[in-house]
C-alpha cells in the first residue's frame, strides 16, 4: 500500500488519482467522525465533502508533522463544529445540535424498543459527553492512537486515554 505521504506528494504535483486514493482510503473515517459530532447523516456527508475540498485546497500547507489522517480528521472536526454553529445560529437549541438522534439517556420504553444490542450500544454512545464520545469512536472505529485522539480533541495523550476509559465505563453502566 502506498503511504499517505507519498500520495500527498503526488497529489501536490497534480496527480488526480493520488488524491482520489486518499479520498477512497479516508472518506469513511471522516464521515463517521463527522456523524459522531453532528449526528445527522446528510450533514455528515456535507462535512465529509467540505473536508476533502478544504484538504485539497490546503494540501501545500500540510507539513507532514502529523499523520495525514490526523490532519484530515482535524479539518473534519472543525467543519463539523462549524456546521453545528450554523445550526445554532438558525435558532436551534444547543442540545439538539449535539445530539439530535437520542436524548440524554434512553428511557426504559425506548430501550425496550431497541432490541438489537449493537444498535442500543450505538445509541447510548451518542449520549456520552463529546470528548468521551469522540475518544471511544476514534479509538474503536478508526483505530487512532491516544496521542492522535488527544491532538484532535485538544487534550494530552493521557487525557484522551482517561476520556476513552471513562466513556467505556459509562457505556457499560448505561447498558447493564
Amino acid at each position, binding site marked *: 500500500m502506498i503511504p499517505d505521504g507519498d500520495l500527498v506528494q503526488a497529489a501536490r504535483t497534480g496527480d*488526480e488519482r493520488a*488524491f*482520489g486514493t486518499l*479520498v*477512497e482510503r479516508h*472518506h*469513511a473515517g471522516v*464521515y*463517521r467522525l463527522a*456523524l459522531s459530532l453532528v449526528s445527522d*447523516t446528510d450533514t455528515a*456527508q456535507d462535512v*465529509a*465533502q467540505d473536508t*476533502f*475540498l478544504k484538504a*485539497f*485546497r490546503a494540501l501545500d500547507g500540510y507539513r507532514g508533522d502529523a499523520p495525514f489522517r490526523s490532519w484530515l480528521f482535524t479539518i473534519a472536526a472543525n467543519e463539523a463544529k462549524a456546521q453545528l454553529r450554523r445550526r445554532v445560529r438558525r435558532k436551534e437549541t444547543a442540545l439538539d445540535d449535539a445530539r439530535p438522534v437520542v436524548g440524554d439517556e434512553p428511557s426504559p420504553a425506548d430501550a425496550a424498543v431497541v432490541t438489537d*444490542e*449493537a*444498535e442500543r*450500544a*450505538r445509541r447510548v*454512545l451518542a449520549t456520552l459527553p463529546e470528548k468521551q464520545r469522540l475518544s*471511544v469512536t476514534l*479509538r*474503536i*472505529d*478508526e*483505530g487512532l492512537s491516544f496521542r492522535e485522539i488527544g491532538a484532535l480533541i485538544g487534550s494530552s495523550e493521557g487525557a484522551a486515554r482517561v476520556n*476513552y*476509559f471513562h466513556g*467505556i465505563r459509562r*457505556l*457499560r453502566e448505561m*447498558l447493564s
Partner: protein
Amino acid sequence: MIIDGCERVRERLSEQAVPLDADEEAHLQACQDCAAEAELIRLLRGSRPEVPAELVGRIESALARERTSRGGRRPWWGLAAAAVAAVALGLGVPGGDRTGDVPAYAAEEATLELWPSDDGEIAGLPALDALSDDALAVLLDELGPSGPGGAA
C-alpha cells in the same frame, strides 16, 4: 475480580486489529469484568455506522468542479508574469500610440543604443588616440597621397 493485568488487557482490547496473546486471552477467560468490556467493544466494532455508497462519488464530483474552476482562474503570479512578458515583447496597450505619449525620461532611455558606436574605427588599425605624435606622423605619411593606395 482480577485487577492484575486488567489495565493492560483493556488497553489491548481497545487496539484495532491486534489479536490478544495467550496470557491476555487467559486473563479474559478468568476476569468477568474484562470479558464484559471485550463484549462491548465487539458490539461496537460490529456496528460501525454505514457509509453512504454515494459519498465517494459526491466528493469526487466536488473535487472535479474545484479543479475546473481552478483551471479557469489565473493566479496572481500568473497575471504578473503575463504583464512582464507583455512589456518585454513591447506589446503595450492594444491600439495605443507607442511613441506619441511617452514621457521624457522614457524617451531618453529609448534613444540609448544597445551597442556602442564603432564609427571611425577600422578593423586592424591601431586606435589613433593611443599613438604618439611621431607614430601618428609616420602613419599620416604612409596614408598620404604619396603613400600606399594614395592617388598618384
